[in-house]
């Protein structure tokens, strides 16, 4: 009789446990929270905000149209290529300056205050100066992106180059490595994790710099696309560009994580 009851109980208990596991599973919680957030956004906007304000259903309605729109694609391409070009320049310059500062005391002492203080400067503040120098064009945007990215890479690479274990350099010296070889084969790989950390910071700042520059200079790009469409009260269309910026930011982060895991296993941060 006892065993019979147990047989009847088991499927029900198993079902309840499975339901509990499903309700408690991270995936379900995340999806539920996402839906709840979207519903709250939709509800608040419908109840309190004017009709033009962006809301999930509105964005969903225009999404496909905007994504296929030539003007939008051109804007996204302009912003993305400017950010990548600026970051490439910032990586080359920042690594060179950072390595020099990290390994040569005189360079470090003479540049320290300039690099640290410009690192702490919000790049928005120099926008008007940059437009004075470069004019209201894409060069000014590129300059602001390089400015935004350069200092975080230089500061981090400098830290990395300074923290190279002394033994590595001694080994290099005892094998009579030339200074350039020691720099490229020992110091650079050893400070790569720091460089990646700097790049992570630089990428976020570069994206912000590009958007801000486009607001200020009014040249085609995602930032200007947002500004233009929100001025004409097409908030749903403008928000698609915000989503594009988030996708770019998050995928860059994911790319850096992947590179770190795949090629720099010794630098894994948990």
């Amino acid at each position: 009789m006892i065993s019979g009851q147990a047989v009847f109980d088991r499927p029900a208990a198993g079902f309840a446990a499975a339901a509990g596991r499903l309700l408690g599973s991270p995936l379900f919680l995340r999806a539920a929270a996402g839906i709840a957030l979207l519903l709250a956004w939709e509800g608040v906007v419908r109840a309190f905000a004017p009709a033009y304000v962006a809301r999930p259903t509105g964005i969903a309605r225009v999404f496909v149209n905007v994504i296929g729109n030539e003007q939008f694609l051109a804007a996204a391409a302009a912003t993305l290529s400017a950010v990548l070009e600026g970051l490439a320049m910032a990586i080359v310059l920042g690594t060179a300056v950072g390595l020099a500062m990290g390994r040569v005391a005189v360079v470090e002492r003479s540049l320290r205050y300039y690099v640290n203080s410009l690192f702490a400067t919000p790049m928005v503040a120099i926008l008007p100066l940059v437009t004075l120098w470069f004019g209201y064009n894409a060069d000014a945007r590129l300059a602001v992106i390089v400015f935004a990215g350069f200092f975080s890479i230089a500061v981090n690479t400098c830290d990395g180059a300074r923290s190279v274990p002394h033994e590595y350099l001694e080994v290099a010296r005892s094998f009579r490595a030339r200074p350039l070889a020691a720099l490229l084969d020992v110091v650079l790989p050893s400070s790569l994790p720091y460089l990646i950390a700097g790049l992570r910071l630089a990428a976020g700042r570069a994206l912000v710099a590009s958007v801000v520059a486009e607001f200020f200079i009014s040249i085609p790009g995602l930032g200007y696309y947002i500004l233009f469409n929100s001025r004409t009260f097409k908030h749903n269309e403008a928000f698609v560009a915000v989503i594009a910026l988030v996708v770019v930011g998050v995928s860059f982060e994911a790319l850096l994580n992947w590179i770190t895991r795949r090629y720099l296993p010794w630098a894994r941060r948990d």
Partner: protein
Amino acid sequence: MGSEARWSPYVTVILSLLAGAAAWEIAAQFTTRAFWAPLSETLGSLAESASSGVLVRQATSSLQLYVSGLALAILVGAPFGVLLARVRWLRVALESYIMMLYATPMVALIPFILSMMGYGFAPKVLVVFLFAVFPILYNTVEGARSIRPELIEVAHAFRSSEWELWRDVLIPYTLPFTMTGIRQAIARGLVGMVAAEFFLSPSGLGQMIMMGSQNFDTAGLLAAILVIVVLGVALMDFGCYIEERFASWRGYSR
């Protein structure tokens, strides 16, 4: 040799600062006034705006905005972060969205805020708040994620009340992470402040920069930028100081 090693770093630093000042002064000789103003004129312009009271008024206005936004971000971000440390399912549900918002360039929202809330103090505070709150939240959640369940179990075993659990375990444990977030928020909030002053109603130090560039008053423009650079450096040092101050609370290093 020993004494030389002691004073030579200072000599290099002083020489480099002097060289920078000289370069700033001389660079003006090679361009027109529209591009660059010599250091002497910049400092003169700074002294002039300081003595006329403009600098103090604009800096106060900027700091009011900055402190309001940052304080709001800390008041919202830190307690919410600790709450997520306590309520595990809420943290699991929200952490990926917080990560996403942390990575979102908040400047992109300024045009929306402008057309919905118009000009005024509140929308600008909102901008600073949005720039500052997600680093605090993100880092506190990172701290919450690394909280060891044993700590809470031990507290329960000793029959800690909910309040004692917060006071003795959750807040001390997450505080160093929150401080890292606050350090990032201090820097990001400053960017938000200048962006709000540029793109919403002009005010404060941002307005000083704008006016300098519109009136081709390069010395005034550089003077205002110099004030912001000094402010940025001071705030960054302060941020690093408070982060260091609480860093030892992390106990075992990860």
